């Protein structure tokens, strides 16, 4: 365990698209980050899945680096952050939401595979660093940001929440 009280800052910023795909065979969803200027929309077959393009949103990816000790945490496995509005007491994230007082909000760190069939999700080191980063200067405001991995959701595809992506740009008059 590091003795450093990390002073995180964002680094390695990459702008691109969060591309969401769905498998028409089993209903699973998958997402990936594309740095291309135009997001790919190809359909393809991968193992038991038949992926089709469902949509894409402008977003960014970043890593965190500590000013004090130089530790760098890759957040490559984080495809997005979703502000959870789940209230389902049978879901770990919903139950966590129900315990929070005013000013505390739960954000779900989204990995690429919503089914988690391979057992992988966002790394615990990444989640810990995100929690430290987003809470670094808000204690006196009575606010708290709680970041959890998406494997805590009963079903992240059906979860109620707001994914932080750039939407509404075509609605501006």
């Amino acid at each position, binding site marked *: 365990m590091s003795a450093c009280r990390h002073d995180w800052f*964002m680094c390695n*910023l990459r*702008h691109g698209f969060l591309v969401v795909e769905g498998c028409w065979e089993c209903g699973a969803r998958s997402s990936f980050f594309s740095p291309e200027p135009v997001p790919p929309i190809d359909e393809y077959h991968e193992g038991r899945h038949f992926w089709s393009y469902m949509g894409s949103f*402008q*977003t*960014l990816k*970043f890593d965190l680096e500590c000013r004090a000790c130089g530790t760098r945490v890759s957040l490559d496995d984080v495809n997005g*952050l979703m*502000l959870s509005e789940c209230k389902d007491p049978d879901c770990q994230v919903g139950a966590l939401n129900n315990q929070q007082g*005013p*000013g505390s*909000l739960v*954000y779900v760190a989204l990995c690429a595979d919503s089914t988690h069939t391979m057992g992988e999700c966002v790394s615990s080191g990444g989640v810990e660093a995100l929690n430290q980063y*987003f809470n670094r*200067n*808000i204690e006196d*405001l*009575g*606010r708290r*940001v709680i970041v959890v991995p998406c494997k805590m959701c009963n079903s992240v595809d059906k979860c109620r929440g*707001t*994914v*932080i*992506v*750039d*939407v*509404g*740009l075509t609605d*501006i*008059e």
Partner: protein
Amino acid sequence: MKISELEGKAGLRALNEYKDREVESVYISDMVSDIITSAKRNSILITLQTHKSLIAAANLVAAAMIVIVKGRIPSDDVVELATRTGIGLFTSDLDTWTFAKKLVQLGLE
């Protein structure tokens, strides 16, 4: 300057109940990906956007208040979310540039 003081001096219309905090900086953007990387704690966010993602991002950077320009009004669920975070949500009939000039005149830079 406190949010409440700015509300009166800048002719803002409050859309929610908010925590009255000292504002320290100004950031103008219509992209949440930009807000997350560049807006500062206790800032005023000026934007045309009215969607929930804006509030989710503003909360992560500990913004003090959001001013939606050109008289745009967000939906009730957006206002409710802003209230949960304590972020002041306001609307101004001015456009972004005119409102920004007004802030400079009031001493915020």
